[in-house]
């Protein structure tokens, strides 16, 4: 096995991730002002970043090939945790996505599922590179992913289910799925859409309906409308840190998670929001570059899974703040409050760095 090469460690990527995370912690201070129940959140978010950084470095040092031995046990663990959530998880926003392990701190198994799905599918598809053109290979990948997707969906967590599906899609695409299979899958999904609608939970249908027809429910529409006002009233330089009226007077709801981007756009303006967007784009650019430079297919697919999740969640969350996509409750990577998401994103960057430190010399 190869030794870690610190010269190949992607320092700019880590720097960008840390900058975005620090921006998140700072804006958290502003977002929880005047909310006595949330005063500890910025400090806790900072601790998550610190722990996440340690986790990132530890994962980077670890050779990602060693993880193949843990893939199957991890897959089983995630399934067990997802089942436990259904039985023991506590209700939160109508979804049973949290599991309080021994009452210590809540664990969100679906966050772990993102990482495990990446590991198991990357290993499966890398091992079948020569047979990627066969339909059986594709069906096998779907069958592996299906239990996780179904359990997450049953929690019910629609947003995270879509994230996992997108992750699966990106992996199949980069692994080399035939265009014909891809097209067939897309047609199949569209045909299944009515069935899918019928099994959606009420609050998910409401969210979709409000997105399609904003006047349907004034109460829920209020949140999105206030996000638009927050972003739109930010202007070039923003209203200043801690000075955003929409944020500070709580016209903006769920400020520390779903709508943290609105807080940034309102208080730091176009300049601040641009910096955030460009940092995220930079992170994604570096990740695509790493995927290209990976030593082997397994490493490449790991990085692609990581990139897909970060890209999708960032676009959906920011798009939701600007009423481009429905409100799905997906956190903004590295910025929204939440220990599980923070640790899982840092773990994923750690995996990418692990691949980076073992990439081949560029021989062109």
């Amino acid at each position, binding site marked *: 096995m190869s030794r870690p090469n610190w010269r190949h460690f992607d320092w700019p990527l880590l720097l960008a991730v840390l900058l975005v995370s620090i921006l998140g912690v700072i804006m958290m201070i502003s977002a929880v002002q005047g909310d006595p129940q949330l005063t500890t959140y910025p400090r806790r978010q900072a601790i998550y970043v610190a722990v996440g950084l340690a986790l990132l470095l530890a994962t980077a040092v670890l050779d990602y090939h060693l993880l193949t031995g843990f893939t199957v046990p991890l897959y089983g663990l995630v399934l067990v945790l997802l089942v436990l959530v259904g039985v023991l998880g506590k209700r939160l926003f109508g979804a049973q996505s949290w599991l309080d392990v021994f009452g210590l701190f809540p664990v969100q198994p679906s966050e772990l599922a993102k990482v495990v799905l990446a590991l198991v599918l990357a290993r499966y598809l890398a091992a079948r590179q020569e*047979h990627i053109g066969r339909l059986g290979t594709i069906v096998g990948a779907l069958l592996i992913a299906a239990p996780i997707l179904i359990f997450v969906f049953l929690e019910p967590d629609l947003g995270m289910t879509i994230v996992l599906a997108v992750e699966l899609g990106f992996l199949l695409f980069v692994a080399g799925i035939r265009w014909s299979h891809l097209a067939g899958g897309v047609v199949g999904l569209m045909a299944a859409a009515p069935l899918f609608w019928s099994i959606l939970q009420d609050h998910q249908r409401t969210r979709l309906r409000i997105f399609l027809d904003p006047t349907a429910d004034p109460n829920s529409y209020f949140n999105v409308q206030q996000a638009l006002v927050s972003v*739109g*009233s930010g202007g070039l330089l923003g209203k200043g840190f801690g000075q955003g009226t929409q944020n500070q*007077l709580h*016209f903006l709801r769920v400020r520390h998670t779903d709508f943290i981007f609105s807080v940034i756009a309102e208080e730091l303006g176009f300049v601040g929001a641009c910096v955030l*967007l460009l940092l995220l784009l930079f992170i994604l650019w570096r990740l695509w570059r790493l*995927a290209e430079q990976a030593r082997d297919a397994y490493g490449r697919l790991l990085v692609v899974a990581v990139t897909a999740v970060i890209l999708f969640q960032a676009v959906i969350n920011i798009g939701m703040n600007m009423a*481009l996509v429905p409100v799905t409750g997906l956190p903004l990577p590295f910025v929204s409050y939440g220990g599980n998401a923070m640790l899982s994103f840092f773990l994923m960057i750690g995996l990418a760095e692990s691949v980076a430190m073992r990439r081949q010399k560029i021989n062109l």
Partner: protein
Amino acid sequence: MTTRPFDPTLRLWLLRLGTVLVFGLLLSRLAVMQFVRGPGYEQQAVANRVRVVLSEGERGVIYDRDGRILARNTVRFGVAVVPANLPDDPDHATSQAKRHAVYAEVIRILGEALSEYERTVTPTPTPSPRVFPPDLFPGISEPPAPTLLDLETIDRLVAERETGSAFAPVLIAENLPREVVLRLAEETYRLPGVELRLRPMRYYPAGADTAHIIGYMGPIPEETRTTYAEKGYSADAWVGWTGLEFTFEDVLRGRPGRRVIEVDVNGRERGVLGPETPPQPGHNLILSLDLELQQAMREALVAGINPKRSESAVAIALDPRTGFVLGMVSLPSYDNNIFADGITTAEYKAIAEARGTPLLNHAIGGIYPPGSTFKMVPAAAGLEEGVITPSTLLDDPGIIYLPNRNAPDNPLLAQPFVCWIYKYGGAHGAINVKEALSVSCDVFFYKLGGGWYATQFEGLGIDTLATYAQYFGFGELTGIDLPGEHRGLVPNPRWKRIAKGERWVTGDTYNMAIGQGDVLATPLQVALMTMAVANDGYLYRPQLVAAITDASSRLVRQMEPELIRRVPVSPQAMAVVREGLWMAVNTPAGTARAAALPGISVAGKTGTAEFFDPDTPRDGKGNLPTHAWFTAFAPYEDPEIVVTVFVYNGGEGSEVAVPIARRILEAYFDLKARDETTGTRSVLDRLLTPATETPAP
């Protein structure tokens, strides 16, 4: 068959390109929102958080001339719960249990305090009939009973309110006595979410005695909403609806305070933006009215009329030197406090349509034939125009026949005109104008007004008579500082042609000369005519408000007497008319001898005005029903008070109206003597003296 491993380079580049495109889309959306649509969103953000809060300044107090309060501010006590401050628990059942404990405790405390209050406090008996007839509105004039919601209703209302604005209080008890509210106030520290509510309201201590003058307040009427909004009234403000509360709304109201505040999403105040304007209390009104005289006038009226027969009655007292009103009673009256809580449409209708229309101020809004009181006008006009001299004699044979215009030689077609004395089998004979006024001879005034063909006596004629009636204020608004005045009617040939399609005939002039026919006047116009006779022709605008003071009782404005016009009648002619009125009271044949007071010389004119009303039957002899009038001034030598009494369907002026006026004059001079003995000066006099010192000649 083995295939070559798939080369992902192309697809990775496609994804990289897609990533850049998506971020480009996000950036352009951000730029459009923040730059192109930014101003619109900024406005919305400001509208979200900025509120202008208006607070009404305390309304001014209304005093009588002696500083007795006629309108003041009070509060009504209530209890409310604020849903957002009630105990809360993530578990719904626990939360409900905690809240129910709070409701139950409030209900227990209030219930106990209320029953204790009712046991210990006996209601004060009503000192005197407040409305006439006294039993006109049982129940409505009582103060509203305390209300207290039950637990289920509170629970339901709180649940409804919580889905909307959880910070808006839910009223659970109202109209509580002060003592009961204080009991609860001691316990609120352990009852989270429970608040005491004070609702400012207007209180009128004199109630029905001054209701027509003070008026009342109510919510802004729909049709005047924009007018009041432009003046800075909030939509739920109350405004004067009638009486002085209406006329002096701008003075009483004062300036509202204005605060611009920043609120959070729940509407809670989070900060103050910009400078704050504190509310300025309104100004106070000091009336020329004397409440003691007013009450004596009401008592004199109630004692002097037969309520079964007379559905309404009026008494007015004016100062003829200035036009200021000393008292004004219109019966039936109502307790204006019943409007302080708002009133249902049914209740309003019941009062508005009750017998005698209690809401109408008959003194200014009722129009009646003035009858013989009107004779002052032809008397003054005849003397001034030279139609008669003080010594001109006109003969009253008891009945005269006015020949038919088309058949002057046929006595069967002639129209008879009788003097009132004719039905008692008498006649006044040849008398002069003073005697005619004192005995209220009708034939004298027929001839004076319309002429007498037999002696080729040229009367005044309708045009001159109507002109002088207008000089004395008939047919026009007096301009009193109250809403709801009627202008009355002075008929003339043109009016008759248009209104009735008939030609004016001499008989019409005859009728008008004795205040009958189509001439109609308000009791206040009769009082004003009397004022002009008493003071040599100075017709002053009647005023109730004599002075305006600020919240610290400093004089802001003194109302000056306002001359409507100088009636163009010489002092000599006016003196003759006055003498005729003096004779009516002070000579054996006079019609108003019952008005004589010991030590004070009174002068006056009675009136017994026939009226036609399908609902009021004629008497047994077929005579039309009559209103009783008497209008007087005193002292004769130097008049300082005019009293006018009107009793609807009262019968003879000399029998019904004169005794009432005598009591009022008596009360006035008794009160004056009392104040002079004790050396008391009214609050109004003390306030005005520094400002009214006559400059050195």
